[in-house]
């Protein structure tokens, strides 16, 4: 993230310096105020959805739903904690129903549950982000709304291409994450094997030394 950010940031600042330098500070400040405004809106939306989810969680409904989706989730995300499964299910369901504002807090909670404290992104975390990036859903309601507002009478035409594109790209994403993770496991497996080999070799050498000292000692005792 740092590399991408630095690259884009510096390129933009340099370009801006030559094209419109007086906009540099205003752009930065306007970015800041947009972040503040969005955070306030998010706070409101998240409070509503987290409140509802608190209630729904306590009724046990989300657990039941998560149990239904468990086989699918296990396959895609691997073995994760029960709470994580619950939040992942909530996040994906919210996305499916087009409730982006509910999906975000659920996604954040899911990521918290998936955190293993190692400071590295786990397979399940990456999978969740990749699937969310394909904006997976049943109906592209936002886009259809925009099209109709711009005067179209035939906004429904985008439904099928969008569904196909979303699901295929999500599928490719899942396959790629699994492939990369398997490749990583293989590499670390080979490293672990090397380590193990060296350790066992060291152990056999230590054993031989031990035996030698033992035999030397027994010899010296018998000589006495």
């Amino acid at each position, binding site marked *: *993230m740092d590399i991408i950010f630095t690259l884009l940031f510096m390129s933009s600042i340099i370009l801006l310096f030559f094209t419109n330098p007086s906009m540099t500070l205003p752009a930065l400040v306007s*970015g800041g105020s947009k972040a503040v405004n969005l955070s306030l809106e998010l706070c409101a939306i998240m409070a509503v*959805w987290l409140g509802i989810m*608190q209630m729904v969680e306590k009724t046990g409904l989300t657990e039941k739903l998560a149990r239904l989706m468990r086989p699918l989730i296990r396959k895609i995300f691997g073995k994760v904690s029960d709470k994580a499964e619950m939040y992942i299910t909530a996040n994906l369901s919210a996305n499916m129903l087009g409730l982006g504002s509910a999906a975000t807090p659920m996604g954040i909670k899911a*990521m918290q549950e998936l955190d293993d404290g190692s400071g590295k992104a786990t397979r399940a975390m*990456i999978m969740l982000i990749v699937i969310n990036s394909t904006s997976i859903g049943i109906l592209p309601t936002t886009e259809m709304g925009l099209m109709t507002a711009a005067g179209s009478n035939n906004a429904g035409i985008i439904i099928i291409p969008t569904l196909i*594109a979303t699901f295929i790209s999500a599928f490719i994403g899942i396959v790629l994450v699994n492939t990369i993770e398997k490749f990583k496991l293989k590499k670390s497996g080979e490293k672990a094997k090397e380590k193990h080999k060296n350790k066992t070799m060291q152990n056999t050498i230590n054993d031989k030394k031990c035996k030698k000292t033992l035999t030397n000692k027994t010899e010296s005792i018998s000589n006495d």
Partner: protein
Amino acid sequence: MIDIYLFPFVLLLLFIYALFKKIPLYSSFIEGAKQALKMVVKTFPYLFAMFILVELMRASSIIAWISKIASPLFNALGVPPEVTELVLFLPLSGNGSIAILKEIYTNFGTDSYISICASVIMGCSDTVFYISSVYFSSTSVKKLGYTIPLSLFICFIGAVIGCFITRLIYHF
């Protein structure tokens, strides 16, 4: 017609079910709000960094420059040059992408191949940087690994597939 009743109906059922199970409504919302506040405080710095970057990129029109360079490659894969800017900007900002989308509708008419392509692209990708930074903000993760490059790649694949299918349907 049904859609305006569906969602409130589901909510009503949920609330009634919760009441039935004797779950306190008031404290649930209080608890939810507390969590929301904590979440927002954690995500703000990341949103901030993202937005200043996006505003700088918009002010410098750097996307227009990158589009010029990326266009031939995109075009070869079936993504028309007019939507290249959208494909490049979508991972960065939802609102900015909506602005680009509206411009495309105005310039090309809502029923043209370009507009439909653009809508499909919009519907099969999302704001990678926003999602990534917000979702990781509440975790201890410092090393994102291949998360962002892979997500960007998937968005691009989605765009290629979307344009391809649109072309099929459009010439139907």
